[in-house]
């Protein structure tokens, strides 16, 4: 028997249970928005983490391959440029050599007398011009610098060159190639002069030819394949000798600083203000005062870019793949967070479920304790009222209104009976019972219960349908208690539906060792906030006096003792479904 302190303890326990249950419900509203924020930041963090994990190695590979590609491309690029310059130089040198040789042959094959004869010279000039179209004029100069004979468009007869630099140089060296100058009809020319020794007279003469730049221009411009590249000839001072595409006209000075020219090809990077960097390659041309220059308006880096962008399909593919990667990353991040949230939700549900059953057990114990305590005074009230009735019936005193007193006493007795029903059920809910184990057919058990309720179903015109799966394994359980379970639930369903409503009872094999019985009705349904209370003792939605509020709590207790579980799904206005899951072999509690 429970003492007063015991009661207080129990009350405290119940209150704390309630508080625990109400508290998370109240705080969950404020935590939803919080957890949403947390989810978003978690998503971002996972996204960044995956992005870093995938992106950093990818970036490193890209940088490394870019560096090695750059090295290779640069070398290849430079070699190509060097080769271009080299071959152009050879063409130009060959051209000059050829002209020098021809002139030398002319000087050697003809006597001084023949050459100084203007008519003879003119004859040679015409023959030569037939071979070398670019020849402009031809003249003979004696050792004192006097023009002895001349064939060409100018009248240079009698002109003296003795104080000119080129005259002195050819006198000393034997051959001379001039820089370019504007000559006849404003066409750029250059001159070649060769010395002819005259040993019999102990003196010399000079044969000089002027050649226009058309052929050389063509030789140089042949390498100008790409629109932004340029090739040209300049002199030692940087004055253009041939037409340049980007660096000026003939006889203009180019803007690029020219270092001392060398025999081999020199490459340097030139950065002109405000324009793209250039690669400038140059080399000196032998037997001439010229330098062959070539500029390429792209560097190795831009060459790689060219190389990559040439195939636009692969660029699109790369962009598409990166895009795909980002999408996949976002999907994974969102999926992971949802997965975590789902796991959290399931865990919370499991905790709530445990708390719920714990609370029901506590309430059950409290109910039983209260019932015990109330039972004794109830018995006393019952006996005292009974004694009063006895005495009244035996008394012969006619002054008192016996009928009225007996009526009053009967009312007391009726109330006691009502209380007794409640205490009995409460005690039944909580008491430890030995579960009987017998082999039963669940479908038969359900049919028996339905038969028992047949009259009311018929009377209220309710359509009760059964979908009982045949060949269900027989279960080991307590038949009497199971009957009570199904009786309670189906009774509730009958109360829930309108006249002419519909109830469906079905059985199915959930998994190899559990059977599920579902009782569905199309009644008014149970509101969400009520569902969590329906298994609590004394909770009833029925009219006063119609139900004790103990049916479902007893049902819950029985199913629990038989090792099963019970779930409710309900929608207001649509109906309610009770799912009772029972093990095929009930474990002894």
């Amino acid at each position, binding site marked *: *028997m429970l003492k007063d302190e015991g009661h207080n303890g129990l009350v405290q326990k119940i209150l704390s249970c309630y508080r625990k249950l109400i508290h998370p419900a109240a705080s969950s509203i404020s935590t939803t928005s919080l957890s949403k924020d947390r989810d978003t930041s978690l998503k971002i963090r996972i996204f960044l983490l995956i992005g870093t994990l995938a992106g950093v190695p990818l970036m490193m590979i890209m940088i490394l391959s870019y560096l090695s590609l750059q090295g290779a491309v640069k070398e290849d690029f430079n070699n190509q440029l060097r080769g271009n310059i080299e071959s152009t130089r050879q063409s130009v040198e060959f051209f000059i050599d050829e002209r020098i040789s021809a002139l030398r042959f002319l000087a050697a094959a003809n006597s001084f007398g023949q050459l100084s004869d203007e008519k003879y010279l003119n004859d040679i000039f015409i023959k030569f011009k037939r071979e070398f179209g670019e020849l402009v004029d031809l003249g003979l100069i004696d050792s004192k610098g006097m023009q002895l004979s001349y064939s060409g468009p100018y009248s240079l007869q009698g002109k003296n060159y003795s104080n000119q630099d080129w005259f002195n140089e050819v006198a000393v060296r034997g051959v001379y190639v001039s820089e370019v100058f504007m000559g006849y009809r404003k066409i750029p020319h250059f001159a070649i002069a060769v010395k002819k020794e005259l040993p019999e007279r102990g003196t010399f003469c000079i044969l000089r030819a002027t050649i226009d730049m058309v052929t050389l221009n063509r030789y140089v411009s042949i390498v100008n394949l790409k629109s932004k590249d340029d090739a040209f000839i300049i002199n030692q001072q940087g004055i253009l000798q041939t037409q340049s595409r980007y660096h000026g006209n003939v006889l203009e000075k180019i803007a690029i600083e020219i270092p001392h020219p060398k025999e081999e090809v020199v490459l340097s990077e030139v950065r002109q203000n405000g324009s793209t960097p250039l690669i400038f390659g140059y080399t000196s041309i032998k037997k001439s005062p010229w330098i062959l220059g070539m500029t390429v308006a792209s560097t190795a880096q831009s060459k790689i870019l060219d190389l990559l962008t040439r195939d636009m399909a692969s660029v699109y593919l790369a962009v598409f793949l990166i895009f795909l990667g980002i999408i996949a990353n976002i999907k994974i991040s969102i999926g992971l967070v949802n997965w975590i949230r789902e796991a959290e939700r399931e865990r919370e549900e499991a905790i709530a479920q445990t708390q719920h059953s714990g609370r029901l057990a506590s309430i059950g114990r409290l109910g039983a304790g209260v*019932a015990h305590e109330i039972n004794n005074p109830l018995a*006393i009230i019952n006996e005292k009222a009974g*004694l009063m009735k*006895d005495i009244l019936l035996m008394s012969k005193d006619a002054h008192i209104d016996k009928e009225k007193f007996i009526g009053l006493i009967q009312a007391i007795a009726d109330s006691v009976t009502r209380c007794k029903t409640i205490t009995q059920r409460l005690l039944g809910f909580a008491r430890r019972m030995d579960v009987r184990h017998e082999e039963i057919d669940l479908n038969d058990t359900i049919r028996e219960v339905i038969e028992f309720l047949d009259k009311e179903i018929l009377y209220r015109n309710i359509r009760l349908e059964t979908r009982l799966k045949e060949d269900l394994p027989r279960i080991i359980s307590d038949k009497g208690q199971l009957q009570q379970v199904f009786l309670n639930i189906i009774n509730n369903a009958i109360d829930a539906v309108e006249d002419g409503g519909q109830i469906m009872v079905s059985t199915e094999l959930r998994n190899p060792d559990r059977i599920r019985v579902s009782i569905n009705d199309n009644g008014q349904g149970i509101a969400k906030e009520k569902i969590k209370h329906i298994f609590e003792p004394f909770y009833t939605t029925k009219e006063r006096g119609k139900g004790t509020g103990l049916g479902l709590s007893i049902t819950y207790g029985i199913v629990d003792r038989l090792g099963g579980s019970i779930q409710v799904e309900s929608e207001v206005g649509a109906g309610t479904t009770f799912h009772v899951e029972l093990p095929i072999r009930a474990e002894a509690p």
Partner: protein
Amino acid sequence: MLLVDDEVEFASTLAERLQIRGFDAKAVFCAEEALDMVRSEPPDVVLLDLKMPGMSGVEVLKTIKKISPSCAVILLTGHGSEQCAAEWAADGAADYAIKPSEIETLVAKIDRANEKRPT
């Protein structure tokens, strides 16, 4: 007959009502007193409360049956079930009644127990 219950008000009132109905009912309020009574003048029928401070009702039942096997014992209990009833019957109880119960029911049970009582 003997009535055993620690609830004095209940036991004495019930005893009085039984006396009105012609039973020679005597009420005692603890197990020891009851056993003394059974030893000194064994009653025909004992109405025994299952829950009392000190000795439990089932123990008192067994002791009574040992002292006086011919004594019919009806158990008074807050609740009952078939399972419990079967156990009590094995221990020698003639019947059981759920408190609070109608006087008519109780009288009927006493009469039946008295008839069946082994002599």
